[in-house]
């Protein structure tokens, strides 16, 4: 485990050092960015809409019955912005994009394509890892921003449509605006940036250390997704604490 952590830190550091080469690799960054968006946008919409909706559905009736109907918008707004959108979208991306990254790099490792790159003096970190890391670090915060908005919309529509809650959409958003500040959204977006780095590093690392044939690739993909999710949850706690200190 400690060897893996060390290797991942080293990979992250080497990718960081390679950042000045991003412009040279812009086409690959764009391709990856497009692929991430293409693979996830619809899922992000569906997932975040229903997360916002179910959040309103679970809390709305209780709050309304307690005379706290005006807090539903704020609760959904802040939960989506600070916690649910960043964490759920990061998990979604780990499963949808991180797994694909591991599978592709792992397959290249197993079938000696990465060795071929090395013999051509092409650094696999520059060629494979850097574009993926930059693309995911740009794409996930954008997807999370989008997910927050769609989640709010989902919460608002459910709050309006459910007869036990029945809060007009304008009232829902007025309440949301009075509670949610730009800092809250920024917190969520910052968290998602950190999660993107975690998913990118874990997925690329697992791909690069893949051994064996198709079974080895499958094993690496599973490890990448599981490790990403565990690290997302752990870092969510750490980041929440750190951001609380900064925001206080």
């Amino acid at each position, binding site marked *: 485990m400690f060897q893996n952590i060390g290797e991942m830190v080293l990979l992250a550091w080497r990718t960081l050092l390679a950042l000045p080469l991003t412009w*040279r690799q812009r086409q690959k960054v764009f391709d990856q960015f497009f692929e991430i968006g293409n693979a996830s946008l619809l899922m992000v919409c569906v997932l975040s809409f229903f997360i916002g909706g179910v959040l309103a559905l679970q809390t709305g009736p209780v709050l309304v019955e307690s005379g706290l109907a005006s807090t539903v918008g704020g609760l959904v707004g802040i939960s989506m912005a600070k916690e649910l959108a960043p964490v759920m979208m990061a998990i979604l991306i780990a499963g949808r994009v991180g797994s694909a990254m591991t599978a*592709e790099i792992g*397959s*290249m490792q197993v*079938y*000696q*394509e990465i*060795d*071929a*790159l*090395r*013999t*051509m*003096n*092409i650094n696999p970190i520059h*060629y494979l890892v850097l574009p993926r890391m930059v693309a995911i670090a740009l794409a996930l915060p954008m997807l999370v921003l989008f997910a927050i908005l769609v989640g709010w919309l989902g919460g608002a529509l459910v709050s309006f449509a459910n007869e036990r809650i029945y809060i007009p959409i304008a009232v829902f958003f007025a309440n949301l605006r009075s509670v949610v500040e730009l800092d809250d959204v920024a917190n969520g977006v910052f968290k998602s940036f950190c999660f993107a780095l975690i998913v990118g590093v874990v997925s690329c690392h697992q791909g690069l250390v893949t051994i064996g044939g198709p079974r080895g690739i499958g094993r690496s993909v599973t490890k990448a997704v599981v490790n990403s999710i565990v690290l997302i949850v752990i870092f969510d706690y750490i980041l929440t604490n750190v951001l609380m200190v900064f925001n206080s």
Partner: protein
Amino acid sequence: MSAGANHQGGVAVEVRGLRKSFGRHEVLKGIDFLVEPGEVFVIMGPSGSGKSVLLKHIVGLERPDEGEILISGEPIHAPEVMARYRMALVFQSGALLNSLTVGENVGLYLSEHRLKPPAEISRIVSEKLEVVGLKGTERKMPNELSGGMKKRVAIARALVIEPHLILYDEPTSELDPLSAVVIGEEILKLKERIHVTSLVVSHDRDLAFGVADRIAVIDDGRILAVGTPDEVRQRPEPIIRKFLTADFNPNHKTRL
């Protein structure tokens, strides 16, 4: 770097006391040999004898536990040596990047290192593909090619580097006899055209005796014999005789 087909000749490769273990399994047990510039040197031996591991050391993909590899007298792991001498490895599988077209694979070295403008890269790619008899395949994907074609694309990709040393890992494995002959002829043509040093690892006796200036026979991580094809044929060691004369036995008595 010149893009022309002809350039300076090959380099000398000297392997001294090379040892390598993976865990408790010692794969290379002290390998010594010298390859002269421009020579076609074939390392021949049965599967699992350490040939491919040896090749990976020479191209710098593995580091030895003991011993050293010298390219024209200089240690291979010195950064300036890797920068000064270009080497290309033609992998057993071809190791083409499956997400790229044939043309992109062949031109990858030039495009990634930004050595030529795109139009010039296209011209060089066409020229190298023509050399290996695959003109017009630039837009194909690797999965549209046969095994032999993949290996020839891999050779074209190696040629683009304008290498001083080309290493071939089992270039005729998984090929039909005709394709194997074509690959062997490509190796010889390259020697004549660009005087590159060629190091071929193979268990294909026909290829070895067909293309080699000299042959080293390796078994169980040790070099058993080095010499010209005729000299190797005359070697009396039973293990070499067995390897060189093994043939299909209807009585099923052949033992590895």
